[in-house]
């Protein structure tokens, strides 16, 4: 037998273990679920994680009212139903909801614009938590502000609950386009980039050096088909979140599996075509210009 360490020097909640879980989810699909039964369908279809929330974005949009953290009993039911990681959404700035979710042992907290914001100026101080956080972003400045607050995963916001991919594409292109420009900037220009982005200079300098965000970047908001997943993965997303796109479609289970397949084989059109066959109707889509509320505008 080898000698062992005592384990007494072990540390929980380090940046490496927080970002590390996000790394393990790369190339996968994280699915919104509101009940344990939906969570089971998601796991059966090959989801890498599920996201517990009170109502899917399409229903929040339709019914209105204040959207909040899911009932702890529901979160626990979902944790019991599946073996894959369970994430849950808290309102922007609502650190008490995040504390509750941490105490339930959820694996990631999503400080999400899909729920009704609780604070109009401040996001949660995510460094104060052992549980890691994912946050949405529409542009690079927003992404870097969230990272400076302690987010360990960024997802482009898109426009949740619309089944329309156009906003997700806009946000991905904006974030990744600016990263590409920063890698071409000289030292003096980086100061101006930090000012323009309203983001910490240190993070801008890090991007100039590495050419990527310091945390994994996933895509959310409007993914409804296998082709949508392939599109955003080819644009540079590292994994996808699917909200209403699965459980608001005609036949959720095969669609969920098909989006998983397309996310893995995103570079192979033959495989994406195979996954796309005969799935029935996708969720009904919405035109962005006709929306009363744009969820992506929440967050500061």
């Amino acid at each position, binding site marked *: 037998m080898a000698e062992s360490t005592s*384990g007494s020097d*072990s540390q*929980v909640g380090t940046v490496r273990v927080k970002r590390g*879980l996000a790394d*393990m989810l790369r*190339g*996968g699909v994280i699915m919104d679920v509101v009940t344990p039964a939906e969570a089971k369908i998601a796991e059966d279809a090959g989801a890498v994680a599920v996201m517990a929330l009170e109502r899917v974005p399409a229903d929040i949009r339709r019914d209105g009212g204040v959207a909040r953290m899911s009932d702890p009993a529901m979160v626990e039911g979902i944790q019991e139903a599946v073996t*894959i*990681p369970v994430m849950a959404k808290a309102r922007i700035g609502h650190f008490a909801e995040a504390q509750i979710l941490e105490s339930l042992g959820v694996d990631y907290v999503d400080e999400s614009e899909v729920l009704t914001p609780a604070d109009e100026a401040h996001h949660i101080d995510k460094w104060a938590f052992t549980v890691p956080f994912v946050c949405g972003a529409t542009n690079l400045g927003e992404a870097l502000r969230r990272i400076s607050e302690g987010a360990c995963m960024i997802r482009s916001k898109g426009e949740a609950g619309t089944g329309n991919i156009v906003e997700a594409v806009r946000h991905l292109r904006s974030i990744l386009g600016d990263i590409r420009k920063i890698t071409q900037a000289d030292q003096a220009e980086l100061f101006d980039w930090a000012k323009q982005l309203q983001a910490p200079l240190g993070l801008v300098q890090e991007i100039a050096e590495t050419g990527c965000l310091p945390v994994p970047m996933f895509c959310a908001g409007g993914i409804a088909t296998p082709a949508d997943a392939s599109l955003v993965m080819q644009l540079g997303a590292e994994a996808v979140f699917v909200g209403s796109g699965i459980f608001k479609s005609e036949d959720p289970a095969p669609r969920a599996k098909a989006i998983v*397949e397309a996310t893995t084989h995103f570079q192979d059109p033959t495989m994406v075509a195979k996954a796309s066959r005969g799935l029935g109707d996708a969720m009904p889509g919405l035109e962005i210009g006709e929306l009363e509320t744009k969820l992506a505008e929440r967050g500061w």
Partner: protein
Amino acid sequence: MAPIVGVLALQGASREHTAALEKLGATVHQVRLPQDLVGLDAIVIPGGESTTISMLLESSETFEPLAELLNQGLPALGTCAGMILLAKEVLDGRPDQKSFAQIGIAVRRNAFGRQIASFETDLKIQNLDQPFPGVFIRAPGADILEPSVEVLASLKLDSGEETPVFCRQKNVLVTSFHPELTDDLRLHQFFLEHL
């Protein structure tokens, strides 16, 4: 000739393994489909979600041909989810979860708990002078089933029990932790040296 190492890239942290192996001079092939398995000297199964990877192995029709290569003695390194996929027995898994059964251990998924219990600790590894940075993320634990399985590192739990976290049987290496998330290349080096 540089060895050709396949990194299973269906889902999970294949990029970090690729970077580590390339730094050590190996040629890396990403494996997603059966045709990607041609000409490999070794295979790495990375961390990720083992249930997802297991399903994707089936749907891509890669499971059977890879299993055949492993049965013929293809050297393998499995980290975290990779350890689960190489184990003879999977406890607490899904009933339909498949494994390659290449190393005589039984693994328990998430043996150390949920993400809030994920941790880093320095590990004493057999034949390495300096401690190795152990990064454990929703990590699996192992029970040894066969005496020929060598334990290269283990960890003492709060209960006082010791659990193996790095094992070898012939040319199959498995770790509960993630060497690919650190800058320390010694474990990948050890793998390449023993091909």
